[in-house]
């Protein structure tokens, strides 16, 4: 989505493969957004972007990590932040949970919150 070279980006379909291979998903959406609609995968943690600087150490450096959000914009910035802090196994998932839902991949909650538009940025933590 964004033209940049710092962070490797993968699509939701490829993310499925990463999940099968044991990757950890890190959802950087805010807690209220996750309460409405969440990714339904085995290994996932929620570190909202608003808390990310204080909590990024919770993310293991020795595991494959896929950063996710609503549209792929916030997670890209968080992934860049991790790369700048020495993480080497981090990728960003493009298009976020909006595309994830379109593809019919598993979620928990109300999918209508992401089917109304394709904005990359939501309430807090972004613009």
């Amino acid at each position: 989505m964004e033209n940049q070279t710092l962070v490797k980006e993968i699509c939701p379909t490829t993310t499925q493969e990463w999940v099968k291979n044991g990757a950890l998903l890190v959802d950087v959406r805010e807690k209220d957004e996750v309460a409405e609609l969440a990714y339904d995968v085995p290994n996932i943690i929620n570190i909202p972007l608003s808390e990310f600087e204080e909590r990024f150490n919770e993310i293991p450096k020795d595991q494959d990590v896929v950063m996710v959000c609503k549209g792929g914009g916030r997670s890209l910035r968080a992934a860049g932040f991790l790369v700048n802090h020495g993480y080497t196994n981090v990728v960003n998932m493009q298009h976020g949970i909006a595309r994830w839902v379109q593809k019919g991949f598993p979620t928990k909650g109300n999918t209508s919150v992401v089917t109304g538009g394709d904005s990359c940025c939501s309430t807090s933590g972004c613009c």
Partner: protein
Amino acid sequence: MTQIKVLGPGCPKCKTTYSNVLEALKQSNIEANVVKVEDIEEMMKYNVLTTPVLMIDEQIKIKGRVAQVNEIIELLKK
């Protein structure tokens, strides 16, 4: 000359911050170079998570919210 950067992907809050910077310079008669940084790679170099970000002379002064005209003037006078 003072260097001011407004970092953000072009969202309404980023545009407001940018116009507030211009207004602050106008009101205070301070001269500065103002640059709008919308390139995501450039933003990531500064480890920016929440936007908009106001930078003065390469230091992050305000992040994650709109910088108001009065506070920009105060920051410029420091």
